[in-house]
Every structure is written in structure tokens, then in C-alpha cells.
């Protein structure tokens, strides 16, 4: 059976010949009509639509967007802020950047609908520091939208006022963590906050209730406001609704962006049919299915999953549907949708050394396990790559990672521990074998990212 066709909701017009990222083009394609219609509805109705849609956050954690909105403290009398998390830094993920570059007004419309629904008067788009072009495009798009009355002091003549500001980060992965992002937006070091008590929905930006949503998530909100929550919930699979953008990178014939209904395509279909299979003469070896922090899958492994009726079924890696729940049941995660493919040319110790270098460099340094553990793991894997491997290093790596996960202030602890835990668990033979292999002839800078 051939793979299902793409269902392009976010990418409805992106990549169409002649589609540009200016307001005129967006309006020609029916732009801001949904905002106009939405603002004629009671805000609570819009929140209900999002709840009914079952939309799950596309930033990484997959937290239900409607639940997130319903947790917002609306009785405090303080202003409510909306922050668009455009700090897309997860290795292997590049979808938000593409949306911003190709269709910024879609995001702005989604932001304005979300702001109107939640009575937000100020929204911030926190964009990654390494996206200067994206920031320029957004600034221009916001100026266009403001001049046309789609945001600003009097939105569409209704008297509703809402400003959108673009804030550029300074190049730190941790700013994608929502409380770290908030600290950074406040002008401080992006040290994630302790939760409790600093849940953004209650004590967020400037200690006010704050909603932090991913770029892609807010674009989905626009679509939900258009077609309605019930219609949206029919897309995809139950509890994994809508479409999602998959960013495939690495050793495949056709890497790139693909938009599919959640759970309607399997990993095997994605890799072999959509992406054209492995490079000539190679075989797939391992897949990281949801951004570099997700646990790695080894080709050939199978998973025993429980069905709803209590029976179990065996699932090969190729047969895993790309949805949140099944990937979680297989011990990894849908994460940010960044699918990283590695073929049999990859040395897994070197690959982990690369990832560990990234996490050691990006640990903010606030809390002990992540700060010291991430660098220690990097030092171990770097040493292993440079012919200093010992037979006990695999076990040591796992032990260090185990001392990080679940004990840190933010999810970075898991993010930096999961690659090591899964690499060592699934490719233990390579880590053991590294002690016997000859020194690597690769130059240092291939590994030494820091």
C-alpha cells in the first residue's frame, strides 16, 4: 500500500509557485478572513474550539493546547501575555523557520486569533538569535499587518488592541524552555524557573499569567478557528489530531519538509517511500524520530505494545506510526518532528560525542546535575573517540545520564540524558567495541564543537 498523501494545512500555500511572504499575496489567498470571522465570536467559544480540536503542542512536549489555555489564571486582574516560542533550536528541527520565512502572516493571524481568544493585549515572538532573516521578515510582516489594521491599537475597527513584538534571542538553546525564554525576555540570564511555583500560566512574564506556544501550534489554531474544533479533531488519529510537519534530515535520498496527518504515516513509509530510501549502497541504521533529545531507535528492534483490548502486538521500527502516543509507547517521543536518519556509515560513539558536545555547550549551568553531567558525558565520549575508550565507559555514561534525568529544574536534564541512555542501551556493542578500535584519524574539530 502506498503511503498516504500529504495533507497540507500549514503548508497549504507554502512552496506554491508565485506565493510570496508579503501581505498582498496572503490577502489574495484569503488571508485574515479567519481573524475577521473569529473576532465576531465570543472569545470563550474560540477557546472551546481549541479544546475540542485536541490540538497538542508542536514544540516538543506535545502538551494539549486547550488544557494549557484553560490553566491560565484569568482572575488575577493582571494582564495576560502570549509568547510565541520561535526559538527553534532542537537539532534536526527546521519547520518553524520555514513557516516564518515563507508565510509569516499565517503565524500573525494565528497569534491574533489566540490573543483575542485569551484577551491578550501584548504578544511577543521570541525568535532564535540565529534567525536574523526570520526576524526581519516578521518585523516587516507585523508592520504590514499593523498598517492594515490586523494588529495594533484598533484591530479591524473593533476597538480591540493588541501589539505584537519581535524579540531576538542571543543564541542559547535553553531559551526554548518556556521559563528560560521568559527570563530572557525579561532581560535576564535564561535560567529556567522552578515549577512550582513559577508556572507560566500563573506566574509567567513579569509574574503575570502567560501562554507560551510554538509557532506551528499557533498556525494550527488559525486553522481550527477556520474549520472548527470538531472538524479538526477528525484529522489525524484519536488523541493525535491534526497534521504535523516532519523535518527529515540525514542519510536519506530526499530530506526535507513533509506535512502529514498525525499517525497516518509510518516511519518506514516516510523513510522508504516519501524520502526515497537510503543513499545508494547504504542501509538505515538508526533513527531519532523527534529532534536530537528524543531517544534513538535502532533499525531492526521491535516493540511489544499493548492494544486497547489488553492484547499485545509486535511493532517493528518501520511500522511505528508517526504520532505522539505510539512513539512514546516505544520509549521515544514525537518531540519537535525532527527526524534524524543515520545509516550504516555512522559510528554511534562519534554520533553521541557530537550530541554530547552540543548539550554540554548549551547547558545553562544553573542546576548541578545537568551542568556537570552534560560536560562530563561530553568529556567521556570525546575521549572515547580519540582512542581513549575503556570497556567500562558505556556503563559509566549510562550511570552519569541516570544521575541527571528527572533531577533537574527543567527538561534539559532529560534532553541531555536521553541520547546517552538510548545510544548506550541500543548500541552497547559499539561502545564496548570502542575500547578495542584503533585511534580515529578524524581531525579534532569534527568532534570538538565547543
Amino acid at each position, binding site marked *: 500500500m502506498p503511503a498516504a498523501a500529504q495533507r497540507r494545512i500549514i503548508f497549504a500555500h507554502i512552496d506554491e509557485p508565485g506565493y510570496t511572504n508579503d501581505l498582498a499575496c496572503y490577502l489574495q489567498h484569503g488571508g485574515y478572513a479567519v481573524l475577521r470571522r473569529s473576532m465576531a465570536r465570543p472569545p470563550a467559544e474560540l477557546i472551546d474550539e481549541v479544546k475540542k480540536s485536541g490540538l497538542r503542542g508542536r514544540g516538543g512536549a506535545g502538551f494539549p493546547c486547550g488544557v494549557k489555555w484553560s490553566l491560565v489564571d484569568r482572575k488575577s486582574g493582571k494582564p495576560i501575555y502570549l509568547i510565541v516560542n520561535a526559538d527553534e533550536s532542537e537539532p534536526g528541527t527546521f519547520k518553524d523557520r520555514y513557516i516564518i520565512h515563507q508565510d509569516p502572516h499565517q503565524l500573525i493571524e494565528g497569534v491574533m486569533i489566540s490573543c483575542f481568544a485569551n484577551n491578550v493585549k501584548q504578544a511577543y515572538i521570541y525568535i532564535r538569535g540565529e534567525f536574523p532573516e526570520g526576524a526581519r521578515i516578521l518585523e516587516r510582516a507585523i508592520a504590514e499587518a499593523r498598517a492594515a489594521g490586523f494588529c495594533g491599537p484598533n484591530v479591524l475597527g473593533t476597538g480591540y488592541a493588541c501589539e505584537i513584538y519581535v524579540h531576538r534571542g542571543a543564541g542559547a538553546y535553553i531559551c526554548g524552555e518556556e521559563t528560560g525564554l521568559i527570563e530572557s525576555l525579561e532581560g535576564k540570564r535564561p535560567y529556567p524557573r522552578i515549577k512550582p511555583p513559577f508556572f507560566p500560566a500563573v506566574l509567567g512574564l513579569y509574574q503575570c499569567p502567560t501562554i507560551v506556544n510554538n509557532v506551528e501550534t499557533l498556525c494550527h489554531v488559525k486553522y481550527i478557528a477556520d474549520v472548527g474544533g470538531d472538524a479538526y479533531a477528525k484529522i489525524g488519529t484519536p488523541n493525535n489530531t491534526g497534521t504535523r510537519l516532519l523535518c527529515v534530515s540525514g542519510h536519506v535520498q530526499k530530506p526535507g519538509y513533509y506535512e502529514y496527518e498525525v499517525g497516518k504515516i509510518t516511519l518506514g513509509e516516510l523513510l522508504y517511500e516519501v524520502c526515497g530510501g537510503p543513499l545508494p549502497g547504504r542501509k538505515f541504521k538508526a533513527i531519532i524520530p523527534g529532534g536530537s533529545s528524543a531517544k534513538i531507535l535502532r533499525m531492526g528492534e521491535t516493540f511489544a505494545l499493548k492494544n486497547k483490548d489488553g492484547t499485545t502486538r509486535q511493532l517493528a521500527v518501520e511500522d511505528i506510526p508517526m504520532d505522539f502516543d505510539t512513539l512514546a509507547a516505544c520509549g521515544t517521543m514525537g518531540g519537535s518532528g525532527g527526524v534524524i536518519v543515520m545509516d550504516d556509515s555512522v559510528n554511534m560513539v562519534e554520533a553521541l560525542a557530537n550530541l554530547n558536545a552540543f548539550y554540554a555547550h548549551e547547558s545553562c549551568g*544553573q542546576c548541578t546535575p545537568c*551542568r*556537570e553531567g552534560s560536560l562530563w558525558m561530553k568529556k567521556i565520549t570525546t575521549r572515547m573517540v580519540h582512542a581513549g575508550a575503556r570497556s567500562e565507559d558505556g556503563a*559509566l555514561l549510562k550511570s552519569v545520564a541516570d*544521575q541527571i534525568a528527572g533531577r533537574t529544574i527543567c527538561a534539559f536534564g532529560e534532553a541531555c540524558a536521553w541520547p546517552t541512555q538510548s545510544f548506550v542501551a541500543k548500541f552497547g556493542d559499539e561502545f564496548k567495541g570502542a575500547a578495542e578500535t584503533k585511534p580515529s584519524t578524524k581531525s579534532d574539530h569534527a568532534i570538538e564543537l565547543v
Partner: protein
Amino acid sequence: MIAPSKPDLVTVNIDGREIAVPKGTNVIEAARLVGVDVPHYCYHPKLTVVGNCRMCLIEMGMPAVDPATKSPIMDPATGKQRINWIPRPQIGCATNASPGLHIRTQTPQIKDCREGVMEFLLVNHPLDCPICDQAGECKLQEQATGYGRGYSRFIEQKNVKPKRTLLGPRVMLDDERCILCSRCIRFSKEIAKDDVLGFIDRGSFSTLTCYPGKKLENNYSLNTVDICPVGALTSTDFRFKMRVWFLKQTNSIDTESSVGANTVVWSREGRIYRITPRRNDEVNDTWMADSGRELYKAVQATDRLTAAKVNGAVSTLDLALGAAAELLKVGRIAPSAPSPIAIVGSGRSSVEEQFLTKQLADALQAPTHLVSRVGEGDGILVSADRNPNTRGALVVGLVSDLPKVGTALRAVRTSSTQSATTDGSESRPYQEIHVGGLSNLAADIDAGKIKTVISVGEDLTAAGLTAAQLAKVAIIYLGTHANATSAAAKVVFPTLAVFEKNGTLVNQQFRLQKFTKAVPAPAGATDDLVVLVQLAAAAGGPALPADIHELWKFIAASVPALGTMTFANLPETGLLLDATPWAGWSFAEGATLHYQPAGGSPP
């Protein structure tokens, strides 16, 4: 004393033991109450909670309730309500007591968490304990012993960071030892209100530093050394001077102002090496000013008086007492005439000394004066009244009114001014203290009414009397250091500094606080109490004991607020006296930590 409002108590269960604690108490403090140690580094009871060290991880559970009916779910095995344990460990410092909270600190998971954090803290720590000043009072050492694995699995290169960074004139930083707990940063920001510290770089390479162009030079900078759990911040004054385990700790009181910060004096073989704050939540929390830490240096000064003198010649104590007795016999012309003897008491004397001074004054029917010292309060722990015991003089009745604020200025270089800026000028101006209050005495001397002056520890010249006025009278001087008054005095009694004797002081809150003897006095100096008892007897006053415990019976009898209190029983945290007789007085102090002036701010 106003009773604190009764806190809302909740019952929590820690390692199977139930205890009622005020709602909101965090797990570290609650566990302390049942004798359970929850190790921690970044948490400090007087600073905001940041939860970054992860040492205080505990297991937390709440009683299970049915989500629909809200009724408790019982455990049939125990007959008690079931506890839902959270699988992830939680930090004790940010977990607050709520009804039914259950805590476990002794499980395999928590043991593993603590071992993990200890290992992480040590992998890049230089382990230079043999040359580290913190050794012996280092949390890293203590908790490595208590909660670490005892062996190392780390074979990589350690990180290299700056070893000797002078953050300010009194604080040295070793970044390699720093565990990045941020206590010093939070202290500077929250308590000292001088936000100069921060981290640069990230991850394991994070480094503590001052902001560009800033220095850690406020008058509270040494508190960062006290609260640093490791040897990263050390005192330039104490650094490399002495191993802390050799030092004897003696409780004392900071005498630089009427705040009366509680202190510990650290000494060895009669020599003081440092002074640190002692926690008193009603007075100084866990802090004290840098300026108060340097007071011990005066004890070892070369101008200490070490021999009794009569007419400038070295004498014995007995001969000096005899000479003083002769001077006191210069009686009045007629029984009804005012006394030709005046007494200058001191707000720096202890309550006991002031009490005896009062007895001496009564025996002589002599007028009494008190020297005032008024500077500018810093709003934290140095108050405007630089006498530590002005209120003691009121309580024992030595004076019945506050001394006039003097006009004689004494420029005091506070600690914060010791650093010179790059161009050699002082970075902050000298602080001015107005010393005085003796204008009436000066007038009486000029009028020839006073022939003899007994000064208990006060330099009359510094307080505004001229050399000519001093020359007109016979002076009996009790004091610790040589000065213009001791030079002009007929009789000089060398007495003891605050670290060399026992006594009490009454601070601005009318809190009676005890200080005790840390080091022996220099040879030749005599306890103030002995001299004053002898002088009072020579003046025909009652026979009083010079032993402080015996003397207290007399003091307690004359100060009703003390009741049956004895010197030995006086609580280390002080005793709040009844201040109503002085309600509405305009004292010099403005607001400081834990103190609000009653009658509004002073003029």
C-alpha cells in the same frame, strides 16, 4: 513584648514521624524540627529559594483522594489513607508544608540522588582542601562525608577557572571552588541592596564575577564569605591566617552601633582572628556589617593602656585607687552645695558598668553626663546611634535624658572606604560621627563649679572639651586606650575591651543582650567592675561585688523588668525589656533591619 500572631499549623509526615509546622514551612526547615538533616547548598533561610543545587531532593507524597467524590482513598493493608507518591524526586527547599504532606528522605532513590549530586559537584572541584581556608567548615567536605560515595569515577581533565580574583577589598574569589549556588548573588541583591555579582559564561564553565566596573565593596561584603558553602569566597583579612578548627568560639555583641548584632568571636591562645555574625532572627538575622568585624583589631593595638598611673607615673592598682580616693574626698563647701565632682558615663559601657557608675554618682551626689555618638544609619545593621548601650544608661538610671547630639566631629573611616580607587583617592567619603553631649559639663568647668571629673571610658577631648578645660580639673580616667584624656588625667585605670570581659548591652529595641569573655586582658589591665566597685566604696557608697553574677542580684533588684533573671540564665538571643517609660522619646535611630522607630523618623 507583643505576642506573634499564632501561625496556621499543618501536620506533615517526615520519614514516618508526624509534626505540626506553620503552613508554608519548607521541607528542609520542617525536617530540621524532627531532627532529620536534609542536605543543601543553595538554600539559605534568609534568602529567596532558587533550587539550583539539587542536593535537597526528597520523595514527596500526598494523601490520595477520589477525584470525583473528594473522599479519601483508604489503604486496606494499613487502614490509613493511601499516599500517592510522586515518582520524580522533588526539591525540599521549594516544597512547602501543606496538610497531609508526606516526605521520605531515606530511600534508595534519595541516597542515589545525593550521591549523584555530590559526585557532580566534585568532578570539577579542585579538591585543594589542604590549602583551603574553608576546610573544617566546608559544606562540601561535610556532605561528601555524609552523603557521597567516597570514591571517584572521574578520569577526565578538570575545568580550569580563575583562582585569585579580588572581588572587592575584603573578598577573594576562587572560581574553581565555586559550586554556583548563587547565595552571594542573592545576598548582594536582596540584603545588601548592592547588585554587583553575577555569572558569566554557561554550563560547567559558568563563572562568578562582578559586573563590569563594579566591585563588591559594600559594608556587608563579608557576609558573602560567611554564606559561601565552599571555599570560593574567602576573607582577605582571615585568609591563610588560621585553621578554623583551632579557634575557640565565644558569643559576643557587635558594639559599633545600637543595633547590637549578635556575633561570634573566633580566638586562639588569647588572640582574636575573626568575628562573624551569630543568627538572631529578631535582631540581625544571619548578617553583620564588615565594619563590626574589624573591631577586634583595636584590642591588639599598641596604644592599649596596660598600667595604672598616678600623675603620669606608673603605679600599682592599690596606689592608684588610693590616689583616686583622695581626689574624691575633695568635698563640697557645704552639704547643700552642688558637688564639685562630675561623672562622664559612657554609652559604650556595659549595663553592669553603668549600674556601678550610677552607684558611684549616687554616693558622691555627683551630676552625670553621657557622651553621644550620632552618625548616619545605613538602614540595615548600622544604626545612627553609634553607642551600643545608650538605652542601658536609661534603664539603670545613670542619666535621665538623652545626651545632646554633639557638634564635635570625628571622621571615621568605615570598612567600605578602605579600598582606594585607581587614582589613589578614597572611593567613598569619610563617614562623620558627631561626638559630644558634654556642653553642660564644659560650662560648669568654665564656671569653676567642677573640680574633679571621673571619665568612665570616654575621651573628653574627642567629646568636645578643650585642653584648657581639661587642665582646670583633676581627672580620674578609666579606659582601654591612650588618648588626650589619659594623658591629662591625675589617675588612670587601664580597663578591659569588650572581648575581654562579660557584660550586657541594651540595644535599640530595648533588648538586653549578653557578651562573654573571649580572650584574656593584657597584663596590667583591670576589670572595669573591680575599679568601679572600689571607687564607689571609697566614695562612701554601698559595698558591692565585682563578680558579675553576684552583682546581677543587685541589678535585678533595681531594674524591675529583670525579675529573677540572672546573668547566667540570660538567653543568648537576648531579653526584651519594657520600653514604655521611654515611649515617644525621639531617639537618633531610623529604621534598620527588624527595627522601626516608634515616634517616626528622627529630626
